[in-house]
C-alpha cells in the first residue's frame, strides 16, 4: 500500500510521526491518512522528503513489542511486555534494577532471544538483518577497544552499516556529542564520560531510525547529562525514534513523549508524563500567605480566586499541583529497589 503525491516544498527530512508533519499543503491527503489508519493502529501517514516528493503509506512502528517473555532458566526477566515506540517518538523506560529493562532493549536489538512473544523494529523481526540495519544501540555496559581513536571507531561502524557519510558524517556526529577536539584521541585516553558520548555518536552512525539507549547518562556529570539531553531533543526534532532506558527520572520527565514503567517484567504504568501525573490540589499565593486546596483541580482555580478576592485578599499567583514522575514511579513500583 503506497501512495505518492507531489508537494511544493520539503515536508520533512526523514520519516516522522504523524503529529510532526506539516500537513497544510497535504490537506486533500488527510482523507487518505484516515483510510490508512484503518489498516491497523500502527498505520499512519508518513511523509518522507525525497527530491520534492512526498511518499505516503502505512508504516510500522519504530518498535513494536507484544507479549514478550524472556526466561533465563528458572528466572523470569520479562513476563509479557507490550510496548510501542512510534516513529519520531521518544519513550522513556523506567523501573527498578532487575525489572527487565535491559533485557527488553537487548531483545529489541537482537542480542537476546525472546522465550515467547514478538518484537519488531520498523516492521522487521528483532534480530534480523533488516531490524539491525534500522537501529542504533548503546549498551549499559559497553567498551570500545582502547587502541582506536574516536574517528577510527566511527569509521569502523560506518563500514559495518555501509554508511556513505564518510568524514563529514563522522565530523557531524563528533560535533553533536561535543567530541570534535577528541577526534584523533585514543579511547583509552578518554574519560568515562567522553567514552559514553562517543558511544552515543557510534549509535547514531548510519542515521538509524530507532535509537536504543540503555542508561546513556550513567557515567556523565551534570554538564554531560545536559549535553545528552540537548542531543535527545535534537534527535526528537530530526524525527528519530528513541527508547531511553534510564534511572534518572528528571531526565526522562524532561525529554520523553511517553513513559513506561516496568516492574518484575511487566509494564505497570504507561502514558505521557502528563497522563501519569495525578492532581495534588491547587496553591494560591495571596497577601495573607499561601493557601492550599488539596482537593481542588485546575478547573476550580477561577472560582477559588474569585472567592479570595471577594474576601478582600490580593492574589499574586496560582499553581496547579500534580504528582511528579518520581512520585508516580514510586507509587507504581511500590518502593521496590531490587
Amino acid at each position, binding site marked *: 500500500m503506497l501512495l505518492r503525491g507531489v508537494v511544493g516544498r520539503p515536508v520533512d527530512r526523514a520519516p516522522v510521526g504523524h503529529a510532526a508533519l506539516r500537513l497544510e499543503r497535504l490537506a486533500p491527503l488527510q482523507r487518505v491518512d484516515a483510510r490508512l489508519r484503518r489498516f491497523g493502529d500502527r498505520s499512519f501517514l508518513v511523509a518522507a522528503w525525497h527530491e520534492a516528493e512526498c511518499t505516503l503509506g502505512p508504516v510500522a512502528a519504530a518498535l513494536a513489542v507484544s507479549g514478550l517473555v524472556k526466561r*533465563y532458566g528458572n528466572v523470569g526477566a520479562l513476563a509479557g511486555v507490550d510496548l510501542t515506540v512510534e516513529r519520531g517518538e521518544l519513550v522513556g523506560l523506567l523501573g527498578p534494577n532487575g525489572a527487565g529493562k535491559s533485557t527488553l532493549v*537487548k531483545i529489541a*536489538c*537482537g*542480542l*537476546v*532471544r525472546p522465550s515467547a512473544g514478538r518484537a519488531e523494529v520498523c516492521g522487521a523481526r528483532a534480530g534480523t*538483518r*533488516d531490524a*539491525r*540495519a534500522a*537501529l542504533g*544501540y548503546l*549498551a549499559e*555496559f*559497553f*567498551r*570500545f*577497544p582502547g*587502541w*582506536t581513536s574516536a574517528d577510527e571507531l566511527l569509521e*569502523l*561502524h560506518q*563500514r*559495518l*552499516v*555501509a554508511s556513505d557519510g564518510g568524514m563529514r558524517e563522522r565530523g557531524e556526529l563528533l560535533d553533536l556529542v561535543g567530541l570534535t577536539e577528541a577526534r584523533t584521541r585514543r579511547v583509552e585516553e578518554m574519560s568515562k564520560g567522553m567514552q559514553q558520548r562517543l*558511544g552515543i555518536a*557510534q549509535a547514531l552512525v548510519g542515521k538509524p531510525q530507532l535509537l536504543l539507549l540503555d542508561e546513556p547518562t550513567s557515567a556523565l556529570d551534570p554538564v554531560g547529562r545536559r549535553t545528552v539531553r540537548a542531543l535527545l531533543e535534537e534527535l526528537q526534532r530530526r524525527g528519530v525514534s528513541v527508547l531511553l532506558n534510564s534511572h534518572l527520572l528528571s531526565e526522562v520527565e524532561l525529554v520523553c513523549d511517553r513513559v513506561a514503567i516496568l516492574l518484575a517484567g511487566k509494564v505497570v504504568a504507561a502514558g505521557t508524563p502528563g497522563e501519569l501525573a495525578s492532581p495534588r490540589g491547587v496553591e494560591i499565593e495571596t497577601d495573607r500567605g499561601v493557601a492550599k486546596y488539596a482537593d481542588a483541580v485546575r478547573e476550580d482555580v477561577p472560582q477559588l480566586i474569585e472567592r479570595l478576592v471577594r474576601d478582600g485578599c490580593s492574589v499574586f499567583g496560582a499553581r496547579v499541583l500534580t504528582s511528579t514522575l518520581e512520585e508516580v514511579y514510586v507509587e507504581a513500583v511500590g518502593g521496590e529497589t531490587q
Partner: protein
Amino acid sequence: MTATLTIAGYGLREALRRKVFVVVCVLSVAFVVLYWLGTRYTFHHVGNVVPPAGIDARTFAASFLFGMAMFGTLFLGVVLAIFLTLGVVRGDAERGLLQPLVVRPVGRSTVLIARFLGAAAVCVPYVLALYFATMVLTHAEGSWWPDRIVTPGLELAGGVLIVAALSLLGSVFLSPVANGIAIFMLFGAGLVAGLLGNIGHVLNSHGLIHAAKIAAWAVPFEALYQDALRAITENTSGLTGFLLRLGPFGGAEQGGLGLRLWALAYLAVVGAVAVAGFQRRDL
C-alpha cells in the same frame, strides 16, 4: 564480504596496535637465532662423530634438528592462534566489546568467520615464515634439504588453523581462561598421543598405535604434524630413516590425502558448530 574484511582488518589492526606483532617478531627472531646457533654448533661437531654402520650422521642430525624446529614452530603458532582467539565471543561479550559489533547488520556468522580469517592471516604467514627460515638455516649449516619442501609447512599451518578454530569454538561457550586452558590441554594431549604412537611403533604395540591413531584423527592438528614430520624424511631409507621415524621428531604416521580432506571437513564442522552455538547465545 566487505563486513568480513572490515572485521578481519579490525582484528589485525588490534594485533598490530597492541604490539602483538612486535612481541611475536622479537621472540621469533630470538628463536631463529638460537636455532641457528644450535645447528651451527651441531654441524661443527657432527663431522667428528663416528656413527654406527648404516647411519648417515649429517642427515640424521639435520632432520632431527629440523623436526625439533617444526615442533617449535607448531608450538609458537598454536600459542599465537590461541591468544588471538580465546576470548573472541564470551571474553569480548563479558568486556562489552562484542555487543556494539553484533548489533550491526553483519550477522554473527560473519563476525566469527572474520575473526577466524584475521587469526589465519596472522598465524599462517607466521608459521610458514618460521618453517622456511629454519629450513634455510638448516641447509646453510648442514647442506641438507628435507625430502618434501612445501607440503610439511602447509600441514603445520593447517594444524595451527585447526587449533585456532577449536579455540574460537571454545570461546563461544567458555570464559577466556577456561578456554585457554582447555585448548592448551587438548594440544598437549594430542602431542602425547603422537609420542605414544611413536613408542607403539618401537614396541610394535598395536593397541598403542591404534589408540594414538584415533587420538590423532580426533584432533587432526596432531595427525597433520605427524604427517609433516614424516614428509621431511619421506625418501630417507635404511637405518637412518628407521631411527628418525621412531621419534620424537620424526613421524611414523602417514596421513596422505585422506587426512587433508578430513582436516578440511573437521574445520568446516568446528566452524558450523561454533556458528550455531554463537547464534543461540544470549549476549
